[in-house]
């Protein structure tokens, strides 16, 4: 992440020096401004969903959901995850499937936090699995795209849905298989200390 970030900034700033140096400050300010605006939107949405989710948690509804999804979650994440983690993961996946990405994010953060051990600096396989499943998109109904298509006067704004669902299912399945395979090759650190040589520390 660090290297990528530096590469993007350095290349862009160098080009700006050649073409129009004034763009640097306007673009970066705009980026920062957008981040503030997005954060305000997000804090509102997080508040809304975390509020609802807390009621569901207190009522034991998330535990029920977790039980329902237990076979799938246990297959994907292994049997060692705690009941709390399992609840967070189930809610995260359910929210992602329903297209409630902003409700899914806080649950994903909670899930990863609950899996992290004191002083842990490297992601474990279940954490990677969760990130890959979320990052390959589970959303079955991309409402943003449909909305934009409608505003552009598309005659058939749902025509792309079938290929889109096939694409998103493919990417998630490929992601799951890859994580399963990689977790066999690069075993988690607690079992073998020897493998740490392979993933060189990136600064």
């Amino acid at each position, binding site marked *: 992440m660090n290297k990528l970030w530096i590469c993007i900034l350095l290349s862009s700033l160098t080009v700006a020096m050649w073409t129009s140096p004034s763009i640097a400050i306007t673009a970066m300010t705009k980026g920062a401004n957008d*981040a503030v605006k997005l954060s305000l939107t997000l804090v509102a949405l997080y*508040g809304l969903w975390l509020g609802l989710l807390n009621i569901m948690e207190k009522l034991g509804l998330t535990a029920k959901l977790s039980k329902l999804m237990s076979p799938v979650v246990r297959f994907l994440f292994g049997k060692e995850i705690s009941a709390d983690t399992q609840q967070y993961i189930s809610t995260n996946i359910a929210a992602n499937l329903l297209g409630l990405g902003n409700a899914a994010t806080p649950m994903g953060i909670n899930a990863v936090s609950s899996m992290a051990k004191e002083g842990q600096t490297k992601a474990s396989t279940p954490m990677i699995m969760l990130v890959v499943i979320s990052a390959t998109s589970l959303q079955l109904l991309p409402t943003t795209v449909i909305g934009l298509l409608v505003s552009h006067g598309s005659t058939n704004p749902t025509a792309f849905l079938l290929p889109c669902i096939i*694409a998103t299912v493919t990417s998630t399945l490929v992601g799951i298989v890859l994580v399963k395979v990689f977790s066999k090759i690069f075993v988690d650190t607690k079992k073998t200390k020897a493998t740490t040589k392979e993933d060189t520390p990136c600064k």
Partner: protein
Amino acid sequence: MQVTAYLIPALFIFVLCYSLAKRHNAYQSFAEGASQALNLIFKVFPYLLTVMIAVEIFRQTGVSAGLAKLVSPALGVFGIPKELSELVLLRPLSGAGSLAILDNIYSVHGTDTYIGKCASVIYGSSETIFYVATIYFTGTKIKKLRYAIPLSLLATFVGVIVGCWMVRLL
């Protein structure tokens, strides 16, 4: 589209009725849950800002478009139209940035053309991978994500190839 519109009120109604039946103080629980949002955003905001500054200047200086031109022949090999390379490139980095590009693609190439449909599939079937990967770990001290990002990118790319292929077939 209509399904999700019904889904949200239905979910709230269900939860509220259930808490009535259980004589649970939903009001109090909701407020408690909502209070976590502030802590969360304090952790998320610095990362959002850091990434969004870089993405914005990347786009505005035209470096992303230049890079997209560079990789477009490679994408062409996999059957992804060259007009969409900037979208493919920016999609994992920035939701807002790539949405602006999607909007532009619809304006230039139309929504119901092959390119328009492929663009819809690419945007709709993928996620802002870097955002997800960074944000999920904000509550922890974990800095090494190991193979999380490369695998997500690879899997998404396979999905995009299949998606564009499906647009041609169906």
